[in-house]
């Protein structure tokens, strides 16, 4: 088995070009990278370097202008929007800078979402799924607040719910976009601890989750196995 077939994520010669009012803008210019199972990778760059755009393309949230992304062995450009959604369901986790919890749903219901969206769990009972969601909340220390709604939680607590949601279905890869960007240092630190611990903390017999972290913070980036620097749309 060669190295590329083991990778959970592989990008080849990615280009992203957008038409703006002042002409064509090249945001990404020939980016290639691969992430192996269980590996933690930081994409480090300043504001406007194209790192969030890269994250969007790698996670299949947008289609590149050129090049190819293979996520979990599937070429993303060959899939339509629903196909890409199905690929993500249950196997890709996300943690966003702005938490992105659904305000209408309680903490528990937010964590349940990936389980319910994953067709593999269709046969499982609601009670079983709820048990797993509660377990995930317990792991981030929020078992007591399962019935609370996002507006009843602090910023740090909301991000911990987001982490519980990201890891509840043991995804193959977890994308994190400036996960502490909206939090102060004291609140941010435990979040990072959780993120790394949970990503590495695989159940016996399971492949550990790979973590792809986008940040502008070199210190945070240094905690990853590997750092990829991006500047003006190319990897440095």
């Amino acid at each position: 088995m060669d190295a590329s077939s083991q990778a959970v994520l592989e990008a080849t010669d990615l280009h992203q070009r957008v038409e703006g009012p002042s002409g064509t803008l090249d945001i990404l210019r020939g980016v290639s990278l691969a992430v192996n199972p269980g590996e933690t990778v930081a994409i480090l760059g300043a504001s406007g370097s194209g790192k969030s755009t890269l994250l969007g393309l790698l996670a299949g949230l947008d289609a590149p202008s050129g090049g190819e992304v293979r996520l979990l062995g599937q070429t993303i450009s060959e899939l339509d929007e629903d196909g890409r959604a199905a690929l993500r369901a249950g196997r890709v986790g996300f943690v966003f800078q702005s938490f992105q919890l659904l305000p209408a749903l309680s903490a528990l219901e937010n964590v349940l979402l990936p389980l319910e969206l994953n067709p593999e769990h269709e046969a499982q009972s609601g009670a079983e799924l709820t048990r797993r969601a509660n377990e995930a909340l317990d792991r981030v220390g929020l078992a007591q607040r399962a019935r609370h709604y996002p507006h009843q939680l602090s910023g740090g607590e909301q991000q911990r719910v987001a982490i519980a949601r990201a890891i509840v279905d043991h995804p193959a890869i977890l994308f994190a976009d400036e996960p502490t960007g909206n939090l102060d240092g004291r609140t941010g630190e435990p979040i990072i601890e959780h993120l790394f611990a949970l990503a590495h903390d695989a159940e016996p017999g399971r492949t550990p989750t790979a973590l792809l972290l986008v940040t502008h913070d070199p210190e945070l980036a240094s905690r990853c196995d590997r750092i990829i620097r991006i500047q003006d749309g190319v990897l440095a």
Partner: protein
Amino acid sequence: MNRHTGLRNLRGWLRGTWQEWRSAELRVLAAALVVAVAAVAAVGFFTDRVDRGMADQAASLLGGDLAITSRSPVPDEWVDEARERGLQSVRSAALPSVLFGADDQSRLSSLRAVDPDWPLVGEARIRDPYGQEHTITHGPEPGEAWLEGALLNDLGLEPGDTVTVGRRDLEITAVLTLEPDRGSALTDLAPRLMLAYEDLESTELIGPGSRVNYQFYLSGIDSVVEAYTDWLEPRLEPGQRIQGLEDAAPELRAAVERAERFLGLASLMAVLLAGAAIAVAAHHFAQRRADSAAIMRALGASARRVLAVYFGRVLLVAVIASLIGLALGFLAQFVLSALLGDWLDGDLPPPGLRPVVAGLGVGLITAAGFALPAMLRIGQVPPLRVLRRDIGLPSASVWLSGALAVAAFGALLWWQAADPQLALWVLLGTAGALLILGLLGAALVLAVRPLRDRGGIALRFGLANLSRRGGLSAVQLVAFSVGILALLLLAIVRVDLLEAWDASIPEDAPNHFYVNIQPGEQEPLADRMEEAGLERPQMDPMIRGRLVAINDLPVGPGDFDDERTRRLLDREFNLSYADEPPEHNPVVEGHWTLDQPESDGLSVEAGLMERLELELGDSLTFRIGGRAVRGSITNVREVNWDSFRVNFFVTGAPALLDEQPRTYITAFRLPEDMRDAQSRWLRDFPAVTAIDVSAILERVRDIIEQATRAVEYVFLFTLVAGLTVLFAAVQATRDVRRREAALLRTLGARRRDIRNALLAEFGTLGFLAGLLAAIIATVIGALLAWQVFDFDYRVNPMTFVYGIGGGTLGIALAGWLGTRRVLDQAPLTVLRGPE
């Protein structure tokens, strides 16, 4: 500020307004106003036309701008005075008289003698001996007579023949086909013979004791007519009465006014729902303008200036939307006129300008009342927001919003109802109903919460959205309920009520009344009817008497405030006497003692007891043919006036009344195929007047049908206004929905999942609104049946089927159409974070 700066500012403001116009919130606000103004204007234009038509027709119905009725001939002094003041005048006299025809056939007719200038206002129509119809503005020549067709037939006469009126022979020169000022008094039920006023004396029918009604009609400039009225009033004697235009056809006028008022109030329901849509849209508008307003404030604009800029834009949009609404309303009123046009004879005059002013007024008041609270918030946005986006707008004062909305709606109600008390009741009723609906709506939203844990992700997410936006959901729920309720009430409950009403009239309910049956005729007439195959009819004696004293204290119309009671005392009662209580009049108080010899007992109808504040044991004195007859109330009867049977307010003991001058009355069912037989026996009883109630019944049904169809039409606006609330709510939540859809897609949701969640949310909303509307429609239907119409009402399951089915499908579809674009939202949006 110099002129150039002012102009530049204005141009900039207008350009800004044009930019704003592209925003969905202003469009929703405009659409809601268009619906509200269109509803009010459609009704306004139509009622304006009807009012003008009524004014035109009133003079024609009255016979002039002023009419004086008198028991004695009009003094020459009145005629001379009118001539001197430059008024046109006409005299007329009417009296009942039996006419004899070709083979000694006789028929009771109503004679009317008129001056040559009759009719003073409007036109009459006659048919000449050659069958040609003519419109005429003069009366018959001396020596001539015009007869109605029915009278000619009954007498076996033709134009060209001679008819004997009293001691005078007149030549029949035409058939009278339209008499514009024919009154609706009972004496006028007999067919008409018209002759020249100057021939009246030669008939020798005028003498002591003859029942002649004299009329004197005047026409001219308003101020002169008024001055003449002032001159005349002190000269009036008892039995002489002045009638103005407002007295013409009072029943029709009252019915039309009630109907107009109801249509007006119905149109305000659309305004109320549109107001809810405007409030939602305005708050969303304010929310989205918070950043711009904060920058304006940070750069030094005063709160008042920010308010002026944004509220000014809303008002400009309101004016434009109101104009569009007016145009739509103008078109829509043609449909109303087509539905209801035959309330009045003849064509309706074109509408005037009053509804235009009214429509603009409604538009501006609604916009101001419902949008101002949101605009005040935008003016008070803290300038610090430019640095800290988490600082929002100051929260809306519920009290201020409520007070402004109530004030605006109350003002509209007052103006539309033209009666502060009615306006207050409708306002309180509406507020109470909305409060109950709101509470029920909120309770229902809570009640479906447990379902969240039972269904899949779509149901969970849809229901979660409903309960998170609890306030907005309740507003939508109320709006849809009102819209669906309006349709259910008219589409199903109306039909149920009409059917139940039909069913409440027994198959064998009488459809004919005979009145004026002379003493001695009642048995032979009953024999003839029995021979013809009818069941022998019951003949009830009928005695005319005026109530002159209660407990020996004189009473008159002036002793009571209530208009109906005054009218009751102003005319003669129809009294009767009987040994047995009528089968269809249960005695509800006291005992029937009228069959006892020497009894002076009276049995009085329950409503009259209340009206005249009577009690058992009270005495009533009636003046009957110049004699006073006194009796005591021994029992109270309940009368169902809709039963189409013979009913009396007061029935006395035979011992008390059977010596009094009387005629007889009967009610019976005449099969359709016996109409020919009827005219044969009626010919032998010429004094009898036949009244065909089936025609009246038919007319009542027609009016109910027409009026409800018109209300249905007006309620369509209510439904559309309810939909604008939906779209306002959808617009207000559009940004949030987009982000949520993108997030769900990021987490792996397919289009189908999101579509199902939207359908679950709006379908549930529609289901709850339909359920609420069906429950309330059923309660209203039952209350109406029980309290107003007095018959049993059965719950119609179709009310629930249509209410819930229509609500679920309709709202789910409308909601999905309004939000389906969120399905196309690229998941990448989530990376950009919340706005």
